[in-house]
């Protein structure tokens, strides 16, 4: 996988397809591979660039505090490092939260914005969900196990969750890192 230096960290990414650039921003704990099902089709129309956010995949994991604004700064620096002046930007969940900051702080860099399962400001309900997720993640050593037990019940309907065989390809988006490093 190619890597590039941006915003004082080394960022890992994948690039597939041809056409206008489409930046795909992952969700919490996932790496660039989380969009494999979309890239398979998007790449027929766009140059799909899916990246690993700081703390996930093969991108650096600095010990300092993160914010969605900082992660947006990373993505803009990443785009500049690749020579991309303007791109379509898409993200799910945390990726959408980052997309909001990116499109509002750097409006000239975004041609279109896709916000999937996003939210404008964390409310007490979402805080409870994520705090519970943190508690479970601390108790687990395996990232795939953490994803299945702590994350997936929130991601999928009970019907889909019970058909775990259909989720196996999704688990590939979670690397074998200590849970403390990726959450």
């Amino acid at each position, binding site marked *: 996988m190619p890597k590039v230096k941006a915003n004082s960290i080394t960022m890992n990414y994948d690039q597939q397809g041809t056409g206008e650039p489409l930046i795909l921003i992952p969700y919490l704990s996932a790496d660039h591979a989380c969009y494999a099902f979309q890239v398979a*089709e998007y790449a027929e*129309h766009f140059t799909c660039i899916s990246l690993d956010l*700081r703390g996930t995949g093969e991108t650096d994991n600095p010990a300092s505090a993160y914010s969605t604004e900082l992660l947006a700064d990373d993505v803009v620096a990443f785009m500049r490092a690749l020579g991309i002046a303007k791109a*379509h930007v898409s993200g799910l969940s945390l990726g959408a939260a980052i997309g909001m900051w990116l499109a509002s702080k750097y409006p000239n860099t975004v041609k279109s914005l896709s916000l999937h399962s996003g939210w*404008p400001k964390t409310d007490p309900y979402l805080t409870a969900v994520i705090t519970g997720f*943190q508690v479970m993640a601390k108790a687990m050593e395996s990232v795939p196990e953490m994803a299945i037990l702590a994350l997936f019940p*929130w991601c999928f309907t009970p019907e889909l969750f019970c058909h775990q065989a259909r989720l196996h390809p999704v688990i590939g988006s979670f690397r074998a890192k200590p849970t403390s490093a990726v959450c």
Partner: protein
Amino acid sequence: MQQSNAVIAHDAESQLSRITAPTLITFGRYDRATSTRFADRMKGRICNSELMIFEGCAHAPIYEKVEEFNDRTLQFLKHYAG
């Protein structure tokens, strides 16, 4: 824990009105974490936005209904390409 702490601290409410790019906002009908309770605030504050709901999905329509998700989101992306 840094990423999840960033999620808990996320507040882009005041930023939304500054977004000028054409924006697609989607939710899964049965999502509880980021449910459609957020839809009106996002749609109302992002001036050039459209809302799309994926029926029968929770938080991850990208996996739950891959074909429908790809078809509908590609339609938006292709509309604003070129």
